[in-house]
Every structure is written in structure tokens, then in C-alpha cells.
């Protein structure tokens, strides 16, 4: 299998993508993508997952269907996505035009001792997404390729899938808040208004 060495820095990738977020809703997948997303700047419309491994893309689908006028970006890792591969098929069936699934693929389980994931052996996540029926899917190795993808994340019709090959270079830990009810209520208040923040009255 053709296999290039990852060269992109994950923190720069996350910062470059999120600099142009506008009013996008962002779901960060368990592990380093949470630290990457937080390092790019904390935001009330970031939902950081500290558990539920394998669920980030489906959280993104739920958000995208509930908020069709807003852009939804899922930023997750290769290990996290591999745990929920079926969700690519489920997303493809719904065809949300406003959803982009972005994988920070370092080909490792970074939080558990840097064991190789399946992508290290050539498993092609973008190929799987494309075959499932994503409108566009690709693998990014270079800054130039990333630059061409970023406007698509924010504007092109989805569902979009982009596997971004990043290095295993460790970045300083940036840990965002982690209490679930606080994250949920902060997100809902920012998106839906204060009256919807916690328990609605209906």
C-alpha cells in the first residue's frame, strides 16, 4: 500500500481550520483533538468529549440535522473514528450538507502509549468515507493540500471527510473544562439562548 510519512503539525492544523470557524459548531473527539481544539481557543460552541469514544462523528450528525443552517465541524482522531466506522455509513445515508468530519490522523493511539492504529498499516479512512457515500473525501499530507481543503470545510456542500496526516510530535497539554453538564449547558445557551440552557419547560 502507498504510504507517505505524516509531516503536518496537529496544533497548526487545528488553529488554521478554526481561525475561520465563524459561527460553526465544533465537536472535538476524545483525546488529543480535544487538546488541539482547546489550544486553538476555547469557545462556547465547542463540545469537548472526554469519553464516549467512537461517538464524535455521530454527535456531529445529530447537531447537523438539528441545526441545518449552521456549519458543524467534527475534529477527531484516527483511533476515535475507527471505533465508530459504521457512523460513516449512517452519516452518508442522511447526507447532511453542513457536516465536515476532520480526522487528525497520527496513526497512533496517542493517549494509551502510542500504539499503531490501523491507519499506520494503510487503512484508508477517506476511501472508506468516499465508498460510504460522502460527497467529498480526501487525505491531506501537505500544507498546500490543507489550504485547499479549509474553505471546503466551511462552505462546500457536505458531508465532507478529510483525513489529515499529522506527526506524532507531542504538543503541550491544553485541557479545557470537563464537567459534562457545564459543557452541555454552555453550548446550548450559546446556540439556543438562555431559556434553553438547562431543562426546558415543555
Amino acid at each position, binding site marked *: 500500500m502507498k504510504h507517505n510519512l505524516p509531516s503536518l503539525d496537529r496544533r497548526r492544523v487545528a488553529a488554521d481550520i478554526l481561525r475561520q470557524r465563524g459561527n460553526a459548531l465544533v465537536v472535538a473527539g476524545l483525546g488529543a483533538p480535544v487538546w488541539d481544539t482547546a489550544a486553538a481557543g476555547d469557545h462556547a460552541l465547542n463540545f469537548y468529549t472526554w*469519553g464516549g469514544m467512537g461517538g464524535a462523528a455521530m454527535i*456531529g450528525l*445529530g447537531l447537523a440535522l*438539528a441545526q441545518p443552517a449552521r456549519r458543524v465541524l467534527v475534529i477527531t482522531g484516527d483511533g476515535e473514528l475507527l471505533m465508530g466506522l459504521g457512523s460513516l455509513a449512517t452519516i452518508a445515508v442522511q447526507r447532511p450538507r453542513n457536516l465536515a468530519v476532520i480526522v487528525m490522523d497520527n496513526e497512533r493511539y496517542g493517549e494509551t502509549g502510542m500504539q499503531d492504529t490501523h491507519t499506520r498499516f494503510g487503512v484508508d479512512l477517506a476511501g472508506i468515507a468516499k465508498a460510504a457515500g460522502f460527497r467529498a473525501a480526501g487525505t491531506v499530507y501537505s500544507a498546500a493540500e490543507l489550504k485547499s481543503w479549509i474553505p471546503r470545510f466551511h462552505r462546500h456542500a457536505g458531508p465532507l471527510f478529510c483525513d489529515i496526516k499529522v506527526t506524532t510530535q507531542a504538543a503541550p497539554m491544553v485541557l479545557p473544562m470537563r464537567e459534562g453538564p457545564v459543557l452541555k449547558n454552555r453550548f446550548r445557551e450559546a446556540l439556543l439562548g438562555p431559556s434553553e440552557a438547562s431543562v426546558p419547560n415543555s
Partner: protein
Amino acid sequence: MPDSGHARLITLVRADRRLRAIPLTTEEEGVALAVGAWLGGERSVLLMQSSGAGNCINMLGMANECRVPLLALVTMRGQWGEFNPWQVPMSRATAPSLAAIGMVVQAVDRAGEVGESVAAAARLAFSTSRMIAVLISQRVVGAKEFK
């Protein structure tokens, strides 16, 4: 997730323009979907059979920690007049495992009580931001016939 016990409900949902049926490849997708939908201001109901309950446990931990209201309608297999022995272990583990991860588990054994039980469970889930599983007995759904 489809089950013969949910077949008519799924057909009704598909026919209702106010609702959206979202088929899943595995039950835990539905838990994460419900979390996202709730973040976006929408309610959802997760349909599954009892054999799928075990697939959801870790993802339900997320909904529990985040106090996301979740209503699951679980049709039971491996219970009342079951023919397939492989259905029995997960059937027996369904209520205890869902309770262990933090769901309120409410069983319904009579067809006439299903409607009011689901309505009450929905109110409990969405009014108190909790996870409720309504287990619909195989006695209501009927044992699957192999012939």
C-alpha cells in the same frame, strides 16, 4: 435499530413529516446522535431490541455525565416464550446493565399500558434531563416464530 416489535412504529415515523427516522448500524450510534441532537435543540427517541442494549453502555456513560435527556424504547427478546437460546443472556443482562450505567429502567408487560408508559417516560426524560429505558416485554411484542 429495527426490531419486529418496532416495525409498525418505524413505518409511522417514516410517514410523519414532523419526525425523522435515522437508521443506525449499531445502537451506540444512536446514543451519540441523541447527544448531538440535544446540543442542537432537538429531541430524539432511540429504538432498539434488548440484544442492542449492551452495545450502548459506554456511550450511555457520556449521556449520563452530560445529563442529556434520553428516551430508549427497548423491545425484549430472550424472555417470554423465546425459542433462540442465544438471545437469553443479553435479555437477562439488559435491565441490570442499563441501570448500572445510570438509566431509569421501567418495564411494561401489558400492551394496554405501553402508550401511557412511554408518555410518562418521555416526560420524565425531558423534564428532568435523565436517561429512561422503557423495556417492552416480549409478552407484548410476541415471540418470534421460526417456521
